[in-house]
């Protein structure tokens, strides 16, 4: 949505790209200048892959990536030169220092959206170059004169051996990054990219996820810096300025953001075209900028996306190929499922703790919510019995969605209090409120469009079975057990809401509206949800779909003893499922009680259904 879709499960093509380039570089008799440029390109590719995790997968931005390459390169070299540390220790410390600096800067910038992050990272890049150039640290970093990097033990700087090492590191980075992107942490990246507020209300620690993504991005930059410093043998600050940060950005734009193999292709093109073929003249700079603009405007999916699209078209027109592609895809699908399908009835842990009956699930006391001078809710009181279905109705703009948003912590009340299962949520962050069992759906289904259905449901378990960066980097070897639990719970939740098995491998965006709403419901059900907030689950559905949804809701309500708070405009639907209802108008409660009692009141009928009895009579008198 921000910079196009991200691709799923790109391990095989991405490793293939990195492998082919490395092997070709090793096998072909390249002239020294080209080989030198190629090694540099592979190093920059690592930095570009890191940036793409931040941009293409997490939807954030950094215009200071070159500065982190510089920090990695300078820190490692300084540890070797000034402190005489051995290479390996210096590299570990150099990359570690970069990670710590990234976390420090990240803790500030993740509070912001694009504009703030762009400004702070751009400025940070400028600061780093200024400090490296200045006299204050010139004894350590060489100032404007630069820093000579001692040769890596036994590796000739531009030789085949160095190329092999760089290629192997690149392949390892590609594997780790692909595994990360397809893990629970990677899924959380994608949800943050889609919508931060929705991610928070689904239990994802948005800032923490953004920090992980930013730190990963910068650590890869540092690794790139170490490899780059070894091949050039000499560091000078101006090579890491804003222009180079933009160059790295260009690599992923040209290669294809939201993929892992794409940035490698981009790095090759961006580094070799101007540096080797055009010999870095003025023409080269103009051509480079023009190429970047053409890609941004005409080919935003980059080389990788373009080839992917051609391959799909080719597969469709040539029957033999398409059968082969199908076979490989189904193999992937089963491989992803890891083992036999668990029994559909596998209940979540919640069942064992018993369903909620007795007591109040939600108490809203004298709630006021303001946006500037506009009072959206005023003196609102709502009581919802545990285990009941409570409908919120009212005309458009009455404050129904605002009430839901306040209950799940997205808006802060200016007065009043909200208690969920007896404890106040004042000052509690949205993802913590989710931890207490509040799950919700949105008017327009807030699912990750470029993830498949099962992966979307797994996101609902982020609170209970959180990804850990370290295991997620190792892939199925380390996360297999967790993934199997996630998979079986997700399949169970999809069974509960009635999504056909053959639709579960599809990208969520390709489902129809009623299915998307059910997937969102499944994401809520799958975790430890006890209080379900549904915002207009019936909007846009046909009569049949509405009935089927009511059936499903009754079913899950009965089976799991959930408390449901539902906003809807459909009287029939409400009469069908609700035990109680509250009517809002202009941000105030105008009626509350059982649906039959409330709907029988003439004044409610007037506000809610637009039957204007009294005002019409007055109008005739005038």
């Amino acid at each position, binding site marked *: 949505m921000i910079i196009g879709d991200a691709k799923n499960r790109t391990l095989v093509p991405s490793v293939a790209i990195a492998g082919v380039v490395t092997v070709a570089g090793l096998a072909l008799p390249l002239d020294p200048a080209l080989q030198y440029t190629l090694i540099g390109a592979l190093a920059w590719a690592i930095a570009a892959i890191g940036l793409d995790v931040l941009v293409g997968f997490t939807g954030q931005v950094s215009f200071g990536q070159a500065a982190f390459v510089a920090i990695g390169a300078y820190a490692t070299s300084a540890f070797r030169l000034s402190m005489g540390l051995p290479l390996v220790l210096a590299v570990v410390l150099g990359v570690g220092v970069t990670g710590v600096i990234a976390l420090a800067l990240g803790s500030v910038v993740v*509070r912001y959206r694009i504009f703030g992050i762009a400004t702070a990272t751009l400025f940070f890049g400028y600061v780093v170059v200024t400090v490296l150039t200045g006299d204050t640290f010139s004894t350590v970093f060489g100032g404007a004169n630069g820093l000579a990097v001692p040769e890596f033990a036994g590796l000739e700087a531009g030789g085949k051996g160095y190329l092999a090492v760089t290629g192997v590191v690149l392949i390892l980075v590609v594997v780790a990054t692909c595994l990360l992107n397809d893990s629970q942490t990677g899924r959380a990246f994608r949800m943050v990219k889609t919508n931060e507020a929705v991610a928070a209300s689904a239990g994802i620690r948005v800032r923490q996820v953004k920090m992980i993504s930013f730190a990963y991005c910068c650590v890869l930059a540092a690794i790139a810096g170490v490899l780059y410093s070894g091949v050039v043998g000499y560091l000078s600050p101006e090579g890491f300025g804003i222009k180079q940060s933009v160059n790295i950005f260009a690599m992923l734009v040209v290669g294809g953001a939201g993929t892992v193999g794409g940035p490698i292709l981009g790095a090759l093109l961006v580094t070799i075209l101007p540096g080797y073929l055009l010999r870095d003249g003025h023409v080269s700079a103009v051509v480079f900028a023009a190429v970047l603009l053409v890609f941004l405007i005409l080919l935003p999916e980059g080389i990788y996306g373009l080839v992917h699209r051609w391959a799909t078209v080719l597969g469709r027109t040539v029957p033999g190929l398409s059968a082969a592609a199908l076979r490989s895809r189904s193999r992937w699908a089963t491989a992803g499922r890891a083992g036999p399908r668990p029994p559909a009835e596998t209940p979540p842990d919640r069942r064992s703790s018993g369903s909620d009956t007795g007591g109040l699930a939600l108490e809203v006391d004298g709630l006021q919510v303001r946006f500037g001078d506009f009072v959206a809710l005023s003196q609102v009181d709502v009581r919802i019995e545990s285990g009941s279905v409570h409908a919120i109705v009212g005309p458009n703009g009455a404050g129904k969605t605002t009430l839901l948003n306040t209950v799940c912590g997205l808006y802060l009340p200016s007065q009043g209090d909200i208690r969920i299962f007896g404890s106040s949520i004042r000052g509690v962050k949205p993802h913590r409120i989710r931890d207490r069992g509040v799950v919700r759906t949105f008017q327009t289904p807030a699912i990750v469009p470029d993830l498949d259905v099962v992966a979307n449901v797994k996101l609902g378990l982020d609170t209970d079975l959180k990804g850990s960066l370290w295991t997620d980097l190792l892939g199925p070897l380390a996360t297999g057990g967790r993934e199997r639990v996630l998979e079986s719970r997700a399949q169970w939740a999809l069974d509960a809401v009635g999504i056909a098995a053959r639709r579960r491998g599809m990208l969520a965006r390709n489902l129809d509206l009623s299915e998307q709403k059910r997937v969102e419901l499944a994401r809520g059900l799958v975790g430890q949800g006890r209080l379900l907030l549904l915002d207009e689950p019936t909007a846009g559905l046909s009569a049949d779909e509405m009935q089927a949804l009511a059936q499903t809701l009754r079913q899950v309500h009965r089976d799991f003893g959930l408390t449901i708070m539902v906003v809807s405009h459909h009287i029939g639907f409400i009469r069908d499922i609700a035990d109680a209802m509250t009517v809002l108008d202009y941000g105030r409660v105008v009626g509350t009680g059982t649906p039959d009692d409330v709907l029988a009141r003439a004044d409610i009928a007037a506000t809610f259904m637009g039957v204007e009895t009294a005002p019409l009579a007055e109008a005739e008198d005038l």
Partner: protein
Amino acid sequence: MGLLLSAGISGIAVGLLYGMIGFAIVMLYKSTGVANFAQGTLATLGGFVCWASMTDLGLPLWAAIVVALVASAVLGVAVYFVVIRPRPSAGNLNITVRTLGLSLLLLAVMEWRWGAGAPYRFPAIVEGTGVQVADFVVPAQSLLIAAVAAAIMGTLWALFRYSNVGLSFRAMAEQPDTARLLGLPATRLSAATWAISAVLGTVVAILLAPSSFLAPSTMESYLLFTFTGIVLGGLTSLPGALLGSVIVGVVSNVTIVALSLEAGVLVVFALLLVVMLLRPQGLLGRPESVRL
């Protein structure tokens, strides 16, 4: 002390220059959601057009300024139609990166054409020593900057506040989709916004050039400080951008004079981080609330 005070005074003048660029950036950001990273190079190009009109065409300064202002308005419109308008569905980040690409392109062209002889000395627009206030002098250039900034901001403010065109601009900035549905000429208004931005940039470049010389990369650090001023001011607030920019101008100028260039950059960066941590909505901005 007197030195610091006069650094502060010229800091206000520099801050007003940042503020005018910031004004242009915020105007574009509010109406299109795009942060224009090409604002600096667009400005520098305007400065070069003015300079070339004098040296290559032999025009007097005032005529060269007119040529540069007209040329930058045309360029602004051209940029909108060629770079920004195609494929609006690509999203704001894509279009923001397009402005970076545009910036690289303009920079490369300027390096190609004028890079070899840079930096160039630019003639002073006003002569004279300035005005004596107590025991220090306010340079004439600073007075000119303040006067031009006041005139431009005043004019734009009056335009936005009292004219029908201004009302359309404000509608576009608040609710672009609704404005379009109501039949406002969105394309023409956006093109005009780009033209105004480019002209503002050129004005700044011409005011800046006499004191800082003219080189293709002149505006790089300016753009950075401008963006900082905007974040300080609250991203979407026009007066905020001006206030934030003046603060950045004064703080950076005083620390550079008192300590060093490095320290100036570091202190402004620290200021940025502190404001981001303690007051995320900026000095005059409103906290944003999401619509779901």
